[in-house]
């Protein structure tokens, strides 16, 4: 596990021993996009052979990903502050290509699925940026689903 922490921190240099923790086992069955939407039953990506919602452009652009999130009720919002009754996700991109998404938990902490690896809980969305995932490019919100 120490080696995995080393790998994670090398790729995502803002992560430190104090701002994240591992919360699941690794899984090839879902990715960060699904997890940001609260789903674990599919791997979302706009390529043939992976799930992508009907009616959304099959392209790796921020606009297409925002549209994919919109199919489940998410709309762009201003900030990442915790708001009661609101679920927020943050979309990351590198060179304008989407790379990652994270989801805010009711506690105000954030959760991310790292590729086919583990889920982590992290202090802010920004701490998974600055490396392989690039930077946060959109914050999306919807009324909490009970």
């Amino acid at each position, binding site marked *: 596990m120490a080696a995995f922490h080393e790998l994670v921190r090398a790729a995502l240099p803002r992560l430190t021993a104090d701002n994240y923790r591992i919360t699941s086992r690794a899984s090839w069955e879902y990715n960060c996009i699904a997890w940001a939407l609260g789903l674990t039953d599919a*791997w979302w990506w706009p390529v043939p*052979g992976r*799930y*992508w919602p009907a009616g959304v452009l099959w392209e790796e652009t921020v606009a297409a990903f925002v549209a994919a999130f919109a199919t489940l009720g998410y709309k762009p919002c201003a900030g990442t502050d915790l708001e009661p009754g609101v679920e927020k996700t943050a979309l990351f991109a590198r060179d304008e290509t989407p*790379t990652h998404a994270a989801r805010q938990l009711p506690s105000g902490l954030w959760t991310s699925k790292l590729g086919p690896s583990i889920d982590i809980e992290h202090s802010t969305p920004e701490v998974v940026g600055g490396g*392989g*995932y690039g930077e946060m490019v959109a914050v999306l919100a919807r009324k909490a689903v009970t």
Partner: protein
Amino acid sequence: MSRTTTPEPASLSAQFQALANQWKAETALLSSTSALVAHPAYQAIIGLGPRVIPLLLRELEEEPVHWFEALKAITGEDPVPPEHWGRIPAMAADWLAWGRSRGLI
């Protein structure tokens, strides 16, 4: 049912495992299927050709590693119906059924 395939040469198995381990390590944090498939080690596995198919299927039996694009590229076939796209256990089951029907596993 007995298996009718001949054992792969040890060197092929070692080569495959080395490439697979490299691919998994270097893509461990990637969600992008495009990036996963474009990785040089994944492309090198495709380059090993049909001999590697039983190895890919055997790994799929263990866990649903995303060998689907490699299998599709090597075989020129795709047993996964669009309604299973992204449903990884179903995609693995489709490919395993394909392999079993051909005596490859």
